[in-house]
């Protein structure tokens, strides 16, 4: 068992990182923001931590927190202009944001190491740390889901005009979703830095964006289980389908098409919905039974 853990440890760790990035992507989508900015946030967090730790001797925990704050701040700044945009335009603007981040990382060589990236980052993150932080983020997400905020996000996603007519300040909640998306993305970007020794701008390109999107689309856009299921399937799939390794992008592509067409809520969300429906059905059946019993009593 211990051997098995050692053999598969990197897969487990990358699964946990994917879950984290998945939540960053999910919180934006959940609030109805078509953001694909997670790659940019992750890059900001990763570079902030890498630069602070390798060049200034900043304490590691402080660097991670600061990286998270900077990325959350980037989310806030990004949300201001984006609040005026909708749909496709948000997607394009966030894509532009990622491109700007990447080209600046390549350009500011003195600071970021350009294409060479930053190396020699201490490897201090392990599976335990990742589990703890993923659990913490899940708790935060769960708390959000339970409060009014979660319901407002759901309302924004489903019918923005209705939410607006009920007096919801759309811009403010979108900004909030962006800050959270930025902070979570930056947090896991920083953790990734402290896990893989070395980062370069290329790590946060189109492939990263597609992977994060796949995790959330496959898993589900609204429930806590979503990114976990998505990341788990994406982690296990290449192991099961090694002969298909050469066609990995195609496999990802087919999954995206099939899931979005036939299982639009994603695997994780569908599972949760199924349980909810069952519970509701059971509750409804229970009510009927009680009512029948009452009727039986009164009619006798």
């Amino acid at each position, binding site marked *: 068992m211990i051997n098995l853990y050692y053999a598969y440890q990197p897969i487990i760790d*990358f699964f946990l990182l994917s879950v984290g990035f998945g939540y960053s992507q999910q919180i934006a989508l959940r609030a109805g923001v078509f953001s694909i900015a997670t790659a940019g946030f992750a890059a900001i967090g990763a570079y902030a931590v890498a630069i602070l730790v390798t060049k200034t001797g900043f304490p590691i925990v402080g660097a991670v927190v600061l990286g998270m704050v900077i990325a959350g701040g980037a989310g806030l700044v990004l949300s201001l202009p984006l609040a005026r945009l909708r749909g496709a335009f948000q997607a394009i603007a966030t894509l532009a944001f990622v491109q700007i981040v990447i080209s600046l990382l390549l350009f500011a060589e003195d600071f970021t190491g350009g294409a060479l990236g930053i190396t020699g980052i201490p490897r201090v993150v392990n599976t335990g740390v990742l589990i703890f932080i993923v659990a913490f983020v899940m708790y935060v997400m769960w708390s959000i889901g339970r409060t009014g905020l979660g319901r407002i996000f759901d309302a924004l996603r489903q019918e923005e005009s209705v939410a607006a007519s009920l007096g919801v300040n759309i811009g403010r909640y979108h900004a909030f979703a962006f800050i959270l998306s930025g902070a979570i993305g930056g947090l896991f970007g920083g953790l990734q830095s402290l896990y893989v020794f070395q980062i370069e701008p290329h790590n946060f390109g189109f492939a990263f964006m597609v992977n994060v999107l796949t995790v959330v689309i496959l898993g589900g856009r609204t429930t806590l289980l979503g990114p976990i299921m998505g990341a788990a399937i994406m982690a296990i799939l290449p192991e099961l389908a090694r002969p298909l390794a050469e066609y990995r992008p195609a496999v990802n592509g087919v999954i995206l098409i099939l899931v979005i067409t036939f299982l639009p809520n994603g695997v994780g969300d569908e599972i949760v919905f199924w349980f909810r429906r069952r519970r509701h059905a059971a509750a409804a059946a229970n009510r009927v039974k009680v009512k029948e019993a009452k009727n039986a009593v009164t009619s006798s």
Partner: protein
Amino acid sequence: MKLLKLGMSVAAFSAVMASSTLAMADEYKIVVLQSLTGGAAFIGKHVADGAVMAADELNEKGFFGAGNSLVYEVADDATDRTQTLSLITRLAADDKVLLVMGPTSGSVALAGANVANERAFPVLTTTNSMEVVENGPWSFILTQPADVTIPYLADFTAQTLGAKSCAIIGVKDNEAYVALQRKYEELIQAQGVSLASVDGVALADSDFSALATKIATSDQDCVFIGTPAAQAANMVIQLRQAGLDPSIPILGHNAFASPAFIEKGGAAVENVYLIGAWVPGGDDEFSQAFAANFQAKTGVSADEWHAVGYSGMQVIANAIKDAVAAGKVTREGVRDALGAQTDIPVVIGEGTYSYDEHRVPRFGMKVMQVKDGAFTVVEQ
């Protein structure tokens, strides 16, 4: 057995294992883990092909003594750090594997080196990055770092050509190419050559019209191009089309030493200077025999990476043989023997391969020029 169960894409090569199950025969097992797919496949696939051919030849020759053989499996790092980390971690858990020849390049190689040093497991990565060596005693590099290779080109630029000012075109999004370009800039400047301009392109770029016009209309007496072969050929074509003075020499590093450079560049790349570890077709008995056999076996003419893979396997085989002779057929024994290899006959560079005291590989480089559509060694 674990390896097979883990299902790497190596079924084809298990035939080798089956044919060598003689009683009492010793088998020395290694894994060739290269980028067979993904961005670095143009390196990794070729290195693996060259290495496999060398291993088969050595076994046929009975290099390890009667009945003994080198058993290898070929696996794919997919130019993907995640997959590589888990593969090496798993290989390290299999006691039978003495050494991994790989991973191929860049951050994948460095990540591989990290795991290897954590798990005390020797890896010989194809890259030339000193960071891999500095990472720990278990990680080696197969190709010469820029410190070793680029002086050949920089000296040629400053001393033989007598250039005074050079335009530099580099790749901005690949660390290995950036490092080579930096080294070249540093070394020619140290010899009094000034930089007329420094520009960067992306690996995926193909539109160099603006850059070509800019350079063709500026003053310089040499142009250095630090990109992969196919892109460089295209760049030279566009420079010529933009009207670059044909008398200005164009120079490139060892990436140019690939048949693709001449194939894609055609007449435009005539007279371009480059350095290379491999002279296509070979330039001595050993390398000519390799070139002929490789062509016969695969139908492809060997390029620099095939030759590097072939040479790398020679070095590994000699290291294992030495470890056997020393009675230490363990990972540690192989590691120590590998770092102590000197003057191993290879098909690249000046013909012999050595690790120096800092475990830096040295086999030399040749300055070459494209003449009549072929690489020819420049006599200095």
